């Protein structure tokens, strides 16, 4: 396989098995995924398909049992410096003993002076609309704001790739819409490469340039759909756009078919 510009982040023949009661339980099998630099890709699949496993392999947090992950041509063996992760459970991913500002500054301690750390962190907090909250503790603000802090922490780190694992699954619907729009804005402003794992089809289509469907046991990529929508998106008009609805329906069908097949198999 040759390396081209179109393969910034890639999974090649990626497989992973967990060992449960001394037996290998395969979760992913032969996953091939190419993400171009600056592209936004959403991975959808129903719960338990191995979406998080895939994301953790991409992040270098989990060593796959087969195949490999490459970022910018280099094989990923551990979390690369050019990559940041936002986890689903914000209440467990922020340090409750640190102020919001200290949380955002923590990953910057490798190789940055304290002044630079502080200004970057404050800029990132401003970017997610959290000006002036730096001295509070994470548990003093709402869940949606905590997830903004986690996103600010990722942005201050200035990664080339941002991976998000069900980032908005634990916040209410209105906050969720706000955060989705915020991610779109960040993406437009920074040109960051984005991979979002979600079980929410609407969210996937709304955020993505491409939606890939992860399905099967063990799971692989069963569909790869281009979202033919302009980069400027709006919660109301985009979600009523026929092109949005077409992709949404297609993804929905794929997952439903897959579920039905799984249902017959068991």
């Amino acid at each position: 396989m040759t390396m081209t510009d179109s393969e910034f982040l890639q999974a090649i023949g990626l497989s992973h098995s967990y060992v449960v009661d001394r037996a290998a339980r395969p979760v992913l099998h032969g996953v091939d995924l190419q993400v171009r630099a600056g592209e936004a890709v959403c991975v959808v699949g129903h719960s338990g398909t191995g979406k998080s496993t895939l994301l953790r392999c991409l992040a270098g947090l989990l060593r796959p049992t087969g195949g490999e992950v490459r970022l910018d041509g280099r094989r990923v063996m551990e979390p690369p410096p050019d990559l940041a992760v936002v986890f689903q459970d914000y209440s467990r991913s922020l340090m409750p003993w640190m102020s919001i500002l200290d949380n955002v500054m923590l990953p910057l301690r490798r190789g940055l002076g304290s002044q630079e750390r502080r200004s970057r962190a404050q800029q990132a907090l401003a970017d997610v609309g959290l000006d002036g909250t730096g001295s509070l503790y994470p548990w003093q603000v709402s869940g949606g704001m905590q997830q903004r802090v986690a996103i600010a922490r990722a942005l201050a780190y200035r990664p080339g790739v941002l991976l998000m694992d069900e980032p908005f699954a634990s916040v209410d619907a209105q906050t969720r819409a706000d955060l989705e729009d915020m991610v779109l804005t960040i993406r437009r402003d920074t040109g960051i490469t984005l991979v979002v794992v979600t079980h929410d089809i609407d969210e996937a289509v709304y955020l993505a340039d491409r939606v890939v469907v992860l399905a099967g046991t063990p799971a692989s990529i069963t569909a790869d759909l281009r979202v033919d929508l302009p980069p400027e998106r709006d919660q109301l008009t985009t979600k009523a756009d026929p092109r949005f609805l077409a992709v949404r329906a297609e993804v929905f069908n794929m997952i439903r078919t897959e579920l039905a097949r799984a249902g017959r198999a068991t």
Partner: protein
Amino acid sequence: MSARLLRLGRHLLVEAWLPVLAVTVWWVGSASSTSLYFPPLSQIAERFRELWLFDQVPVHLVPSLQNLGWGLLCGVAAAVATGIVIGRMPRLHSALLPLMEFMRATPILALLPLVFGLLGLGVTSKVALIALGAFWPTFLNTVDGVRSVDPQIREVARAYRLTRTDIAFRVVLPSAMPQVVVGFRTSVSVAVVVVVGSEMFGAGNGIGYFVLQAQRTYAIADMWAGIVLLGLLGYLLNLLSAGFERWVLSWHRGQRAAAAVLGEGAR
């Protein structure tokens, strides 16, 4: 302001009525006592004033406090350092566990003759014993705290490539801190016991020595004055370590209070 003062007054009243009553009963009940071992409280109070305000303080109290301070410092510092290391090495931990349980269960005062034999009857032995006594509660709690760091937090630390030092001091130690502090508070009470015990065994000064010596010379009111001083010391140390806990773990209390309030809203 006056309302706050009033509230403070009422709080003191609620806290203090039983101790005040107990002392009064003791005072009145022992007033005409002729028992050798239970002299009148008035006599004890008189001796307390003569001895501990502040005539004998430099002779007996200061050396005890110095031993306590050094022993605690060494024991707790060693406990936290080794606790962090061993807590992060599951294999080593399980290999050492039976040994650690055995050593913890051995009464520290049983080692007194051994340590005094090895290191002599000086300050070194006493500090070593106090440190050893203070070590185990903090150490075992630190290990537990380090082992129970949330795996999600560990993953964040890995994903953002934190340095080993930052992981140790900014992630693992603060996360383990609630348990470290519980261990520390037990260490303080163990250390006080070892201070007194070691001074009773082999010493020429210290409160433990003083209490034993007073009993041996039938200066029973002096003995009681020493006991009361130790009681007050223990109480004060407990207040201090509770204050320390409040200060170090303010985030923890805040977080738990917030979780309790938001329990429903946070979903």
